[in-house]
């Protein structure tokens, strides 16, 4: 099962849920930290590094001896990443999406593709958990290519995969969620929490992936999130209380299920609830 953990609003507890679920499942699980702009899972699951690779995206490189400055490449490019002013084409790497179009349209075959570094993918082993994380280089604008690189490390061996998504509802989150079997949306019972949950629900429905909700910091607000979920027929699969001890453990980089063993059953129940929903043929909507 590929389980993604997302939220509209930041700071609701995605990483808390992801890492504690991973620890609860234990040996064999794969945890992929797809928040490549600000990865955090490795702060809670510290293991030994087993891999570290630079990730590049293909950007055009022009062979000036073959180029006749026809400008076809510049006319084709939708991103102004390659442009010709009657001289050899100029490439603007940070604008390039790596579509390969310029190389295809060049009548002289003068364009080949070279790699431009966007970040790294690191793999770690922590007590039988395989942790994969991506780190976007500072100043690189686009996260999805690196997110796809992190996801490409996923092993198809029947073990559960947890994808820790970035916050929000736009392209980095979409890149993370695509192909998942189930999505957990983490929220808090406040006006911001509800508003952003509604946005996230619209997004997940657009992707047609079954989902359920986790409500974190119960008690700090009111029941608006619960009412919304009830009205929409969305199952709430876990509620975590507003326990200052959880916040403190989190602030120190400790797993909740390690620091406060009484919470182990919460995460075990969450897993069980997810499996039930999936076996029940998608009560989640």
């Amino acid at each position, binding site marked *: 099962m590929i389980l993604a953990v997302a939220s509209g609003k930041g700071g609701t507890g995605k990483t808390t849920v992801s890492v504690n679920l991973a620890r609860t499942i234990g040996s064999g699980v794969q945890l992929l930290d797809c928040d490549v702009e*600000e990865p955090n899972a490795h702060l809670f699951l510290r293991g030994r590094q087993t891999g570290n690779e630079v990730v590049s995206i293909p950007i055009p490189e022009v062979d000036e001896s073959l180029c006749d400055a026809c400008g076809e490449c510049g006319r084709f490019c939708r991103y102004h990443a390659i442009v010709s002013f009657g001289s050899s084409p100029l490439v603007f790497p940070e604008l390039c999406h790596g579509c390969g*179009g310029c190389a295809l349209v060049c009548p002289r075959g003068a364009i080949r593709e070279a790699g431009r570094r966007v970040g790294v993918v690191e793999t770690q082993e922590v007590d039988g958990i395989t942790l994969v994380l991506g780190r976007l280089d500072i100043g690189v604008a686009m996260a999805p290519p690196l997110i796809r690189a992190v996801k490409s490390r996923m092993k198809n061996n029947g073990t559960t995969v947890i994808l820790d998504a970035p916050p*929000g509802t*736009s*392209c980095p989150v979409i890149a993370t969620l695509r192909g998942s079997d189930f999505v957990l949306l983490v929220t808090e019972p*406040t006006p911001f929490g509800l508003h952003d949950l509604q946005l996230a629900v619209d*997004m997940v429905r657009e992707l047609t992936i079954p989902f359920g909700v986790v409500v974190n910091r119960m008690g700090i607000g009111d029941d608006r999130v619960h009412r919304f979920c009830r009205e929409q027929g969305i199952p709430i699969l876990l509620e975590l209380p507003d326990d200052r001890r959880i916040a*403190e453990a989190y602030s120190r*980089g400790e797993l909740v299920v390690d620091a406060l063993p009484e919470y182990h059953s919460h995460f075990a129940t969450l897993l069980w609830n997810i499996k039930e929903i999936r076996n029940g043929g998608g009560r989640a909507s």
Partner: protein
Amino acid sequence: MTGAKVEELVIISGKGGTGKTSLTASFAVLAEFPVLADCDVDAADLHLILAPTVRERHEFRSGNEAVIRSADCLGCGKCFELCRFGAVVPGGEGEAYAIDPVACEGCGVCVRFCPAAAIDFPEALCGEWLVSETRCGPMVHARLGVAAENSGKLVSTVRSEARRLANEHGHGLVIVDGPPGIGCPVIASLTGTSQALVVTEPTVSGEHDLERVLKLARHFGIPTSVCVNKWDLNPSMTERIEALALRAGARIAGRIRYDNAVTAAQMLGKAVVETEAPSAGDIRRVWEALGLQGNKEKS
């Protein structure tokens, strides 16, 4: 000269959920005559506190999307072979191919190379941006469409409209509620601004993410201050974070205590400084420390 800079404060965080929006709302109240800009376009929340009355709506179009005309599709699979983004969905036996609009990045390769010219390439409607009135001043905000590409252009549009309003109506200050992370929406919020304030929290995540976002701000040469929110949750971590900030060349704008009343204020649709919350005084001191023109407290 048009396009000249108005003073602008961008509030960012690196890590999400540290309190950017709550703080922006309070600053909006404390500032004398600001224009507000909500640049967290894919999870905009500032309007929940500032209750804007919408005056203008504008469609936001950016880029194109490929759409296959099924009746004309030969099923040859050329588009599928060429697409770098996994956006082409093969049809079943003898059925037309289709483009997944969520995955399509609008590059135009399939459109160009389809042997039957069966692929249209209309401009993509990605969302909308709005100009509104609030009790604190004009506000520019936006709504990005579901699964739209957050290329930073909508963020730029919100920012430049806010600056234009500020120029036209003589406001001295634009306050920007920024997005989390370090990618294109954040870059689009930060570049060319007068100063940035990073709101963080005293946790290992907050520390880790602060380091990255400070590097980004330095990369763009933006004068940056840091403020630790909920600082008393972990005082020793707070000190570590402040030391990190100073080493990175940022100023410390102050600390805000953990306060249940913040959520209570949010529930009432009020900025924290519009209530008697214990942290309101902390927020006022941070605002003072930023030393911006258009500071009501000064006059």
